[in-house]
């Protein structure tokens, strides 16, 4: 248990690194092992990148709020933005055709693979909220 720690960054790709460092520092404090810390870093990066690319549809359109807390033996990351509503249910798992080599959908796939739970919600007052949970081994 612990109260959430919060960091707000501008919605720019070169600021995401800061959000990742903030979450990684939290994961270290929470006692995650190195592999889990790497996972949490990747998930945070992919989440923030998607917010800029898909929710805001570009850089400099709004802030991203990242927070972490320890809850019930889990490390919980929350990512909030004020961009367009997103429901990921329709997003297919990624498919890479070696001949075609179109690539897409990796970001969500990574988040789902490396975290134990990933859930999106939209609320008119708070915008999009993404919650990602990593169990502490």
């Amino acid at each position, binding site marked *: 248990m612990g109260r959430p720690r919060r960091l707000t960054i501008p919605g720019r790709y070169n*600021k995401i690194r800061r959000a990742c460092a903030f979450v990684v520092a939290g994961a270290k404090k929470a006692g995650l092992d190195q592999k889990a810390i790497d996972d949490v870093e990747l998930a945070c*990066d992919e989440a923030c990148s998607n917010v*800029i690319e898909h929710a805001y549809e570009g850089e400099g359109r709004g802030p991203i709020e990242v927070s972490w807390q320890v809850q019930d033996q889990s490390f919980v990351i929350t990512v909030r933005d004020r961009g367009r509503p997103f429901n990921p249910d329709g997003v297919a798992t990624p498919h890479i055709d070696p001949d075609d*080599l*179109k690539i897409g959908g*990796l970001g969500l796939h990574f988040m789902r693979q490396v975290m134990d739970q990933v859930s999106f919600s939209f609320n008119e007052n708070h915008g999009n909220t993404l919650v990602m949970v990593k169990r502490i081994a």
Partner: protein
Amino acid sequence: MEISVQSFKRVELLSVSGRIDSGTAPQLEESLRQLTDNGRHRIVAELSGVSYMSSAGLRALVGALRECKKHGGEVVIATPSERVADVLKLAGLDAVFQVFGDTVSAVGSF
């Protein structure tokens, strides 16, 4: 992220180090595009010094691979760091890229 390019007779050796994420991947894309725009379609991406790579980095590499293959070339990966190897595997791209444990073999593969 640091990128250096060494041009050999038939092969380009692009060495990347540091962090490849959505903030830096555009530079990697640009470096790769410069090579393919100049008709250089045999590329070794030497990734031993990469401390972190996200899907943005993979997209850059796959884009270059597609372009090179169109012209009968290839992008191969040499000496991936553990972090890079993990992400390649997570994406299922370890089966799409030829990966070499040493740079000599990667350059020699062309």
